[in-house]
């Protein structure tokens, strides 16, 4: 879990944070905080599917499920265990 958390955190920081000096935590609100918009969420979903060889159904890939790194990790784990 630790590893997934850090991989996702680093990816979000590298790909979506315009200000690299800004602090990003596992609980930073990514979608509702305005760091990742709904259009970009599609590319983040694609990253997770590619990286972890899973398929995330659209009805599970909600703004809430993607709103923090911790939420994303929960979602990924749910599908890794299936």
């Amino acid at each position, binding site marked *: 879990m630790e590893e997934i958390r850090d991989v996702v955190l680093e990816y979000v920081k590298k790909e979506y944070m*315009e200000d690299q*000096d800004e602090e990003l935590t596992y609980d930073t609100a990514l*979608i509702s*905080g305005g*760091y990742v918009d*709904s*259009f*970009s969420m599609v*590319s983040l979903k694609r990253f997770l599917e590619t990286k972890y060889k899973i398929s995330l159904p659209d009805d599970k890939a909600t*703004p809430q499920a993607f709103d923090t790194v911790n939420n994303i990790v929960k979602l990924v784990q749910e599908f890794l265990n299936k």
Partner: protein
Amino acid sequence: MHNIGSYEDRLKQNSWQLSEQELGYKPGDNINIGWYCSDRICQMGKGDKLALKWEGIGGKEKNYTYNDVRQLSNSIGNFLRQLGIQPGERVCLFMDRIPELYIGFVGILKTGAIAQPLFSAFGDESLLVRLENAETAAILTQKKHVGKVRKILDKLPHLRHIIVVDDAGKSALQDREVAFNMDESARIDNFDIYPTTAESPSVLHYTSGTTGMPKGVKHVHYALISIYLTAKWVLDLHEKDIYWCTADPGWVTGTSYGIVAPWALGVTQCVNDIGFSADAWYSFIQKHKITVWYSAPTAIRSLMKAGEEVVKQYDLSSLRHLASVGEPLNAEAVIWGEKVYGLKFHDSYWQTETGSIMISNYPGMKIKPGSMGKPFPGISGVVVDTETYELITEVGKVGLIGFKPGWPSMMRTYWNNEETYQKKFVNGWYIPGDRAYIDQDGYFWFVGRDDDIINTGGHLVSPFEVESALLEHPAVAESAVVAKPDFVNMEVVKAFVTLKPGYEASEELDLDIMNFIRKKLSPLAMPQEIEFVPNLPKTRSGKIMRRVLKAQEWGEEIGDISTLEDD
């Protein structure tokens, strides 16, 4: 009582003359939108009234009275003038929805310069083509976005000043950069506002074209006459309203109805600079007791997806009038709005080039869910034949929407592109490029675009621009970009791609291309789906037939393919 009163009675009046009278404007007078949005309201005795209630990420809040807006826009104007910015020069606003964007817009107009707002999520390529075309002289931006400007700076010889509004001194400023902290700047009480007149240019908004690069739509200060009255009658703004326009000022709704309209009417407006979530939006409405809410179909459909249960957790009883713009609002969304909020969304139709609302549903008038409504009093709106451009009088027959030119906020030209501008006028009508029909009661019903432009979440994306950017990816040989249907955004970008020798389709490549476009152009332009294909449908002369691919996506008849190249 609604501001508009009887729609039929308003049709008998001269709307624009009425608007001029209410604004105290006479032909030949000076007219400066910046003055109308701040100084005039203060002169009316409302200097202490809140103009802007702002909320940012992490719960940050800031409030500005009309007197604050007046003085701080003076400070920004003065700063620009000291930098040597001249009337008529273009000053870009490239910021998130922070107070400096709203007040900066007013300040730029006060100097006589032209405000050029650009969506802050634009990537460096999108930014470059727009700044290059406008020969922009200065850009107001944030530390988080300055990197994109630095990346393209050597291609922008006209850009003399990069004004960083939130530099805290942590990072060193570079070539042509200067810091300006609005809240800490010396407040200027008296500023010599440039005496702009009706036809002086005010705002330059960029919009996507099907076959060319983005076009700069030039508006003038006289546009205020349209914006003021449409906001008063369509949005029904009253003195005590708390107004929320969810549009970003990088797009025309965000300036016409997210800055100019509420402030010219002296109304308190709320702005949030946070991302979308149903909880965050409902909480914002509840907290600020929003009364008038102008939003977009994409947001409304996203709220529909979030469901009814979340609505019940908030007190939204302050809401009294809802309106929508961006793309057609489907009937289901209107019906759902009434069910969960007890209010119907009033759909409105207009575009960057028209500068203000042209067709709308009005307070007090019967709403036919899914209809665009009727032309604004003072606007002559029709449907014309797609081939002959002759007026269609037959009820229900589909044609192109047309407007009789001459309303106050009509664009005056495309920047450096008068030829394309002239082509928008045919047989005495301005043709926005949308198809519709009119029913027996005079209501307009949207049918679709008449070109390949993609309307995603209310924003226009040019397939040409995305295809051009795709060609810069090392793996892409050819591409065709079309609209794909989407429940929330109405349409999203889909790309069909053929690969260069040596490259193979894979999930990794798919993601790489997505991110390439997102960073280069914008998240809106990023293909939400990429389909790798061995070849693309082309005419015998080699032109890619987007319509064949689009028809496939929409499950429509492909139509005439007699010119299709044989494989």
